[in-house]
């Protein structure tokens, strides 16, 4: 197998015990793969399960059945059955996730929030901060804000800090949940550029993008999630 991500028949249902055990089927029969250097965009209306699929690939949501094959350090690991420590190892050296909202520790400076993934992987603090600064500059976050915690920033600024945090490392898989949602046109163009660069580096990406224009620019392939809808 050369695919970076290979999903077969993945299925997810929520059981809401506090609502009398109501079963909420999310997706079933999810099957697709992503090759290196390819960006697959998930399409479908809100509530179709796009974000849930991304979370399943990241190991954040558990998978009830099926297989989520991830190419990790030269071997294939099934995230649907992996041990917590294996999932952590995959997240550290294989899969990055750019969520819609930034979840940062209070008190930590923006530049350090962005540099953190590199430091965790053994890059020196100075080098990591240099790269973080370069990325923040590209994303038009003024230098005077770098020492402040991002919690004080506007929504669009936080989103760009989040993107810098997600794009800084050299992980071979990136999951993007609405990376351009609250950005203006010039910053959207920067993100499109960053995605192009990742493709050239052979990074496999799965993205959720509602903006038709952006989708058209970044998608190599579109996977329609409605075909995985789990009829209740």
């Amino acid at each position, binding site marked *: 197998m050369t695919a970076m991500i290979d999903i077969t028949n993945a299925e997810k249902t929520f059981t809401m015990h*506090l609502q009398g055990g109501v079963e909420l089927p999310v997706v079933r029969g999810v099957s697709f793969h992503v090759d290196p250097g390819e960006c697959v965009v998930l399409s479908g209306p809100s509530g179709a399960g796009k974000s849930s699929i991304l979370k399943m690939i990241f190991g954040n949501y558990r998978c009830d059945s099926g297989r989520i094959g991830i190419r990790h350090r030269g071997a294939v690991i099934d995230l649907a059955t992996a041990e*917590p*420590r294996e999932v*952590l190892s995959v997240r*550290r050296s294989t899969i990055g996730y750019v969520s819609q909202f930034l979840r940062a*520790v209070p008190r930590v400076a923006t530049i350090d929030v962005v540099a953190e993934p590199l430091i965790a992987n053994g890059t020196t603090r100075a080098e990591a901060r240099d790269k973080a600064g370069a990325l923040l500059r590209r994303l038009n976050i003024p230098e005077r804000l770098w020492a402040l915690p991002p919690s004080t920033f506007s929504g669009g600024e936080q989103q760009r800090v989040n993107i810098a945090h997600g794009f800084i490392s050299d992980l071979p898989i990136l999951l993007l949940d609405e990376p351009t949602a609250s950005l203006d046109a010039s910053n959207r163009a920067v993100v499109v550029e960053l995605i192009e660069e990742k493709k050239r580096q052979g990074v496999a990406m799965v993205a959720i993008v509602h903006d038709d224009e952006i989708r058209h620019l970044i998608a190599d392939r579109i996977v329609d999630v409605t075909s995985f809808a789990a009829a209740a």
Partner: protein
Amino acid sequence: MAELQDVTPDDQPLLVAEHLGKNYGRLTACRDVSFALYPGEVLAIVGESGSGKSTLLQLLSAQLAPSAGRVSYRMRDGVLRDLAALGEAERRFLFRTDWGYVHQDPAQGLRMAVSAGANVGERLMAVGWNHYGRIRDTASSWLERVEIDIARIDDAPRTYSGGMRQRLQIARNLVTEPRLVFMDEPTGGLDVSVQARLLDLMRNLVSELGLAAIVVTHDLAVARLLSHRVMVMKGGRVIETGLTDQVLDDPREPYTQLLVSSILPA
């Protein structure tokens, strides 16, 4: 989520609990708990009062003898040993050097009437350090690391605020470079603003030193910030376990769903 450690799937566990249980007469405080903790891994034990989490922490740290099962620990020679079978010298080595124990109430983990410097230096003297200057230097560098003003080194912790006392307790525990730290509600009695600072500090120290830690907390936000993995306890049993963000974002058991849904939005 806690910063990811260099946890590789092929190393060996540091601490192993097997079918651990504790009864007080007919009352079961803790039943059939099994797990393995790896070097550099932070495990949170969550649950409400009376769920057995504090009893479990005492069993794991050899402060309480189990009624059933056993706890094994990998000593520095690489051999996994049953804690109940350790000799006095080995037990002392664990308590004084290789382990740390952070109490909810700093007064329990500190000597309140002696200076801050002596509180930190004492752990070093217990492991054979005898050069006053070196002990004082090491103590001051640890006070700096936990953000305590060096000018306060000769003051006793009873003159410190709650947050400072807790940071001093952490310095006292970490000065011997332990491999495993037990924490019992480490942010328990503190103001919210002080809690955030302490959590940030602990998170950095744990990741910089590659410490393994077992943290008992009823606060799911603490679990989310500090731990890689979480065990949810109820009625003395572990009812759900897994990666911290997985258990908190996709809780499976009714009780865990209740805990998660009971968090008040800020």
